[in-house]
């Protein structure tokens, strides 16, 4: 695993010694999870929902009960390059 690249994608800053430490730990984990490749899943569909539910929606109306009135901007140090 390219730990540096993954940390960047994950918006995490690693301390100098962490990269090496994590690299070793990841190697162990990745080896353990490799075992699923023993199973044949060529005709199997992935499951991302165990509820079996579909079409759960809400009506288009205002719910004032959850509104939080913060009333001011959140501030962060200036970001250059507008989206």
């Amino acid at each position, binding site marked *: 695993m390219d730990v540096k690249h993954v940390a960047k*994608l994950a918006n995490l800053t690693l301390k100098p010694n962490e990269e090496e430490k994590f690299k070793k730990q990841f190697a162990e984990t990745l080896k353990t999870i490799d075992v699923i490749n023993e199973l044949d899943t060529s005709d199997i569909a992935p499951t991302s929902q165990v509820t079996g539910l579909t079409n759960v929606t809400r009506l*288009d109306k205002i719910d004032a009960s*959850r509104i*939080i009135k913060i009333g001011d901007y*959140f*501030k962060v140090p200036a970001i250059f390059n507008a989206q």
Partner: protein
Amino acid sequence: MFANRNFRPVLGFEVHIELGTKSKMFCGCPADHFGVSPNTQVCPVCLGLPGALPVPNAKAIEWCIKLGLALGCDINLFSKFDRKNYFYPDLPKGYQISQYDIPFCKNGQLLGHKITRVHMEEDTGKLQHQGDVTLIDFNRSGVPLVEVVTAADFKNSDDSDVFLKELQQIIRTLGISGADMEKGSMRLEANISVRPANSPNLPNYKIEVKNVNSFRFIKRAVDFEVSRQIKILESGANPAQETRGWSEIKQETVSQRIKEEAHDYRYFPEPDIPPLQFTKAQIDTWRSELPELPAQVRQELITKYHLSPQYAVIISSDQVMYSEFLKNPSKTTVDALVNKRPLQNQTTAKVDSEVVNKILAANPKAVADFKAGKQQALFFLIGQVKKELGNIDVSLTQRIINEYVR
């Protein structure tokens, strides 16, 4: 317009439309955020607080699909939401709930241009720069957005200008959004590159032009950008892949940031929202609920009311003009509307043939007199119709009476 025979533009668009629903996409906060005090229309969901969960807005989904149907799309009967993961301060959850591989609508077309997909997603918050600080307002976070993606099959900016305006009209006709460029409820992104005329390969770069809030400006931006890219290519170099904006002052596109290697969005199905399963019957019902679209209206103005194609375009392009015309469909009305003269008899009543029939039947002597050639009798009959219906188009009524009496 450019007349360079050695290069062809590769031009496509991504259009984002803020829906005019009452509430946001995944929560019950008000969706209309125009002119509202910062962070006063937020809740745990659209603020991305710990433990908050999204529940999709049924109306927004219906409107997205109706737009897809109006654009001739196929509707995916099975669909879902996906998470698009990236970090930015205006994105409170650190991911945007969007659609990835199974959008609601796909493979449509408009005015001969292919529409790749129409899908549903949520808007981000708004950033405002103030000196050494950036201010964030999440009132807009979670507002429903429909994204329309076209193929890169536009020949030039005239082509795209007509297309985008037609798209705006369709959206307004459907009543799903104000589609207002200045207010930001319709946002355009142009993807522009250029390739040698005889090359079968697509260019290896793409420039995004964003944050341009009028049709006039995007047209100029496209023209400028194509020329700029041609010049670079002719010099033997390759245009840098980046995002650019339009400067009306400089009359140029300007670099906004270098587009790094494509984001790795790590899309995966949204576990907090069960998938959507539509029936053909549901889609058919929604299709039957579509109003007359601009193209149909133009066609009707031409074939039924005998307007010229140019006048048909003008009259159909404006809801108010169109309804005014329908109140009193006549040549005088068209002239007045097109030349922006005050309309006569603004509240002209429709001439109901049944009413005319009734009046003729009730006044056999006047009818007989009129048949015998007495003009007075005609005026009398018209007067009776006017009494019954109010302000009417006199010449039209005369024509109807003539027909009936014959």
